């Protein structure tokens, strides 16, 4: 049975068996730990925190800059009494609605652009016109159309998400190699199936970039929009929380709100998008 060609001598090691260099002394181990990027970033963060605390104490004007410790105390308190988590939940719900809407609309536009010439021209025209328009600039219009409240916010969120996502998807689909397209067509794939099975995975680095940029835009737009009007419904989100606390001159809570905004942004970037990247494009060697 095994008259197979003689290919036994394969030159490379199987993947994933790169031998780690033997670690010698505890000192070099410590040096190795200190060399890790995240360890170094953590140290930098601690340094910045200390600088904040020192400056705020020296300034001694909690109405301008509360100390870090006051901010942390305020944060813990707001989390405990459930106010901050409630606000975050409201914000995230709006955000997810706007993000899903934007991504869905972008997918329709990008697939139309991949399949037809008129679709591509339409997408290019729309993005050229609307991408430079800041989402917040649409707020007055949104107020007129949807009134004060969730509808308006979701509208501007969709606007902030759809263009960067569609633009990246379009660029991704356009850059798929003609060879890969031919491989797909060779297997009898055409139209939507070719797009789904070949174009989408082949464009995944661009798609991920689009989703990431779209998320960052949406988060910023949301906080800004809430600062302008979270009022109406009586139950505002995180942006409204910050605005409200400013009116009450509760500066530690204002800072606690800001810290929360940053933390959620970072958490999504690291826990969601980095993980997704590591499991897909990095594993596939497609990150350029």
């Amino acid at each position: 049975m095994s008259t197979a060609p003689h290919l036994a001598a394969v030159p490379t090691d199987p993947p994933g068996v790169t031998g780690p260099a033997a670690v010698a002394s505890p000192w070099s181990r410590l040096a190795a730990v200190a060399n890790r990027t995240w360890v170094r970033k953590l140290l930098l963060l601690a340094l910045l925190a200390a600088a904040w605390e020192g400056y705020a104490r020296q300034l001694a004007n909690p109405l301008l800059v509360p100390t870090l410790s006051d901010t942390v105390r305020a944060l813990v308190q707001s989390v405990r009494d459930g106010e901050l988590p409630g606000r975050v939940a409201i914000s995230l719900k709006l955000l997810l609605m706007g993000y899903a809407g934007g991504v869905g609309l972008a997918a329709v536009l990008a697939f139309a652009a991949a399949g037809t010439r008129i679709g591509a021209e339409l997408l290019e025209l729309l993005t050229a016109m609307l991408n430079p328009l800041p989402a917040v600039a649409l707020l007055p219009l949104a107020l007129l159309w949807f009134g004060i409240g969730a509808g308006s916010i979701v509208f501007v969120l969709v606007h902030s998400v759809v263009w960067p996502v569609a633009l990246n998807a379009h660029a991704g689909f356009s850059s798929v190699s003609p060879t890969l397209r031919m491989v797909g067509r060779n297997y009898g794939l055409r139209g939507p199936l070719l797009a789904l099975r070949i174009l989408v995975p082949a464009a995944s680095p661009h798609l991920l970039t689009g989703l990431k940029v779209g998320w960052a835009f949406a988060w910023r737009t949301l906080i800004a929009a809430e600062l302008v009007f979270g009022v109406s419904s009586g139950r505002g989100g995180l942006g409204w929380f910050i605005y409200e606390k400013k009116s009450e001159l509760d500066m530690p809570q204002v800072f606690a709100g800001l810290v929360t905004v940053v933390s959620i942004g970072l958490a999504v970037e690291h826990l969601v998008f980095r993980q997704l990247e590591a499991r897909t494009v990095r594993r596939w060697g497609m990150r350029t």
Partner: protein
Amino acid sequence: MATAMTLAGAPLLDLAGVTLEYRSGGRRVVATEGVGFQVEAGERVALLGPSGCGKSTLLKAVAGFLPPAAGRISLHGRALVSPGPDRIVVFQGFDQLLPWKTVHENVVFALRTARGLRRAEAERRARDHVRRVGLAPFAHAYPHELSGGMKQRVAIARCLALQPEIVLMDEPFGALDALTRERMQEELLELWREARFTLLFVTHDIAEAVRVGSRVILLSAHPGRVRADLRVGEGALAGDAHDAQARVRALVFDALEDWSI
């Protein structure tokens, strides 16, 4: 001539007066002109010609990616209309594997998509064909973890697993180093002895054409026309490659004044 039905006794592949051209913005580039030849089942036809003479274009037309401007390409007497898994192409570049799938998954994907096999059956056949090209230890590696030669082996395994009517190869070893190229040529012949598939193999390398082909079709420089159709027989397989190569070489220099590369 019957047009829309399979003819008993018709050759497997039949090209008659095939002219292929590209049109872009009013400009017209003629790639091949009036090319005609037939391929019988089990033949290994090397399509030899200088760079730019339209070999890749011709292969794309046979694969169904490009309709002829004139002439007719038929398979079993039936005119070709679209690409299909009865003609599988192995390309020159290293970008023909799906980078998001492992070696094994690449073959499974092809079998499930093109042949509609159920997963279990596709997996069984994929394992078998990956083993035949000696890549069983790398079955679960991703393409970017493989060398160029290994990627081409996977592409060949993926193609042969589909058991197409005709295997189309476009300088599949063109981007490999000389040593690897020679070994791959041997391996390809070894695989052919096992499966006896029909092969249309494009190359601009005389030695490769003679080594791989049982027949060499010589194309002239731009635009490509058939200049010679030479039966090398099993000379190369039998180890009598020098004789055949000398004959082809003499013919090439006779027929083509402007041979490049």
